[in-house]
């Protein structure tokens, strides 16, 4: 009964459209890994601090500035005093350094824009990961080459889990590992 073909195609079309809509709705952002997360987030900073110069060029250890990272869950942003240790002498003429210095003298601070943001109900412990031998780059990417800090991974839960899952890491997979 070939005279029904067109009709059947019409039905088929409807069906396909519906199916597509359905799968998009249900699987949502699934098809674009990282979509909806801040991957690639690289905001303008009040002072264009350049990791590549400090780390790659002048070989300053991460822990020199982020000196509490091995003792605390948080990796501290260095106090202005830390910056001034060098910048009392170094590159004092640069307008940015002057900005820094003014803030320092006023007893004020610098409002850096936070790049790597986790929700408040997620607890990531820097010290624990370092102790385990995870290095900064695993999560922060090639930070030492970044002239402006850019979020390297999407930092989604799945992204964390994938690493914790690997048997060789024997990392815990409990909910309480991160949520409490």
């Amino acid at each position: 009964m070939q005279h029904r073909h067109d009709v059947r195609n019409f039905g088929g079309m409807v069906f396909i459209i519906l199916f597509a809509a359905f799968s998009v709705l249900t699987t949502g952002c699934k098809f674009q890994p990282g979509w909806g997360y801040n991957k690639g987030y690289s905001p303008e900073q009040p002072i264009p601090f350049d990791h590549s110069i400090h780390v790659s060029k002048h070989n300053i250890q991460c822990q020199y500035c982020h000196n509490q990272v091995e003792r605390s869950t948080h990796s501290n942003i260095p106090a202005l005093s830390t910056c001034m240790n060098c910048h009392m002498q170094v590159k004092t003429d640069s307008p940015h350094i002057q900005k820094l210095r003014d803030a320092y003298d006023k007893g004020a601070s610098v409002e850096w824009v936070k790049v790597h943001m986790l929700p408040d109900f997620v607890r990531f412990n820097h010290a624990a990961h370092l102790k385990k031998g995870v290095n900064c780059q695993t999560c922060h990417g090639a930070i030492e080459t970044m002239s402006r800090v850019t979020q390297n991974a999407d930092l989604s839960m799945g992204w964390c889990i994938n690493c914790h899952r690997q048997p060789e890491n024997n990392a815990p997979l409990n909910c309480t590992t991160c949520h409490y």
Partner: protein
Amino acid sequence: MIKRNQLIIGNKSFKDITDDICAPVERFPSKGWVGLFLGAKTLLIFYIFVLGMVLANGMGLLGVNHPVAWGTMIITFVFWIGIGHAGTLISAILFLFRQKWRTSVARTAEAMTVFAVMTAGLFPLLHTGRPWLDFWLFPYPNQRGPLWVNFRSPLLWDVFAVSTYATVSMVFWYIGLVPDFATIKDRAKNKVRRMVYGALSLGWKGTARNWSHYEMLYLLLAGLSAPLVLSVHTIVSFDFSVAGLPGWHTTIFPPYFVAGAIFSGFAMVITLMTLVRIGFPQFKDYITIDHMEVMNKIIMTTGMMVGYAYASEFFVAWYSGNPYERYAFLNRAGVPGTSGDYAWSYWIMVTCNVIIPQLFWFKWARRNIPTMFIVSIFVNIGMWFERFVITVTSLHNDFLPSNWGNYAWSFWDGAVLFGSFGMFLTLFLLYLRLVPAISIAEIKPVLDVGKDKKGGH
């Protein structure tokens, strides 16, 4: 074989049948209908406001508390889901049993089912603390690991059961409607109606080939719906019986709930049918007093089943020797020495569900419209209280006396309960206007049943 009364009285021709049934759809609505509809619609708007408030402020508005963490919403959910069973039961199971009398009530009963399930379906979604996250109850691929759902939880079974049931019963209903939509289309005087009903009828032609496929599908759907309808309330009962609370953790729940569902469902059908007969007098020829009587018999039977369940619960509680179980049931009945705070609800339940339906032992009661209407209302009330008793009394006094407490009933509880009727009635009244309330295609074959000249097909 015993001679039976006609299913359709008043020597109708096929044309008459079509005219009669299509009339409400084609004619301008009566004052009565408009009045009812406005009332229902207002109630619906109120309902929407109430739900909005609950959403905006949190579940705390309702009486749910610690220890009674489930309340009106779950009770009313079970209530409506229960009602939503008669339709599929009539159209599927009675179809399989070749009960020809079903044809005149099946359509409306199914419609009732669909709307009841819609009304019920809202509650589990809205009674959560963070309804906007309800989609987490569906196992969909996600970026959390992926993190799936807990298939061990009866609530998840609910999600699957209720949504499946809603889908299938809606499809079943619609499939039944297709030929009738075609009828209305062909009778249509104006273009718009022709277009709308044409679209709804999917271009049905009614050729012999189509009919043979159609009947086969109808049989299949009936066959699938029958176990489905049983499974749904079974699973709803699991919400309680899988939990460990005294008064919940009982194996009798599945059959007991299903019986209760049929019971309440038929009661609601009676309630609605009496109204339909008043609203559309011409339907009296199709929904005859015989139809009503049959359903009343079912009500009485299932009513006694439910009563039996109540009794056996007590027996098992005593027989088990489990002190918590025993206390829970003594407490329900308000036996001295227990807190018995909710004994009143228990006795309301027993009166409405077990005692009052006994009226139907008398033929006059079964065949008297006002009587059956009142009884059906009582049954509806009683069945709501059955769920209240189960949910609240078991929770309010459970294992540790230290955390015994009572349900903190608030204005919002009542508002949610009554508002839900607004939603149901609005849908139902719209249905009466827009859809042939009796299956035109199904009723014609049974036209001759009980006629003297030949004993039907």
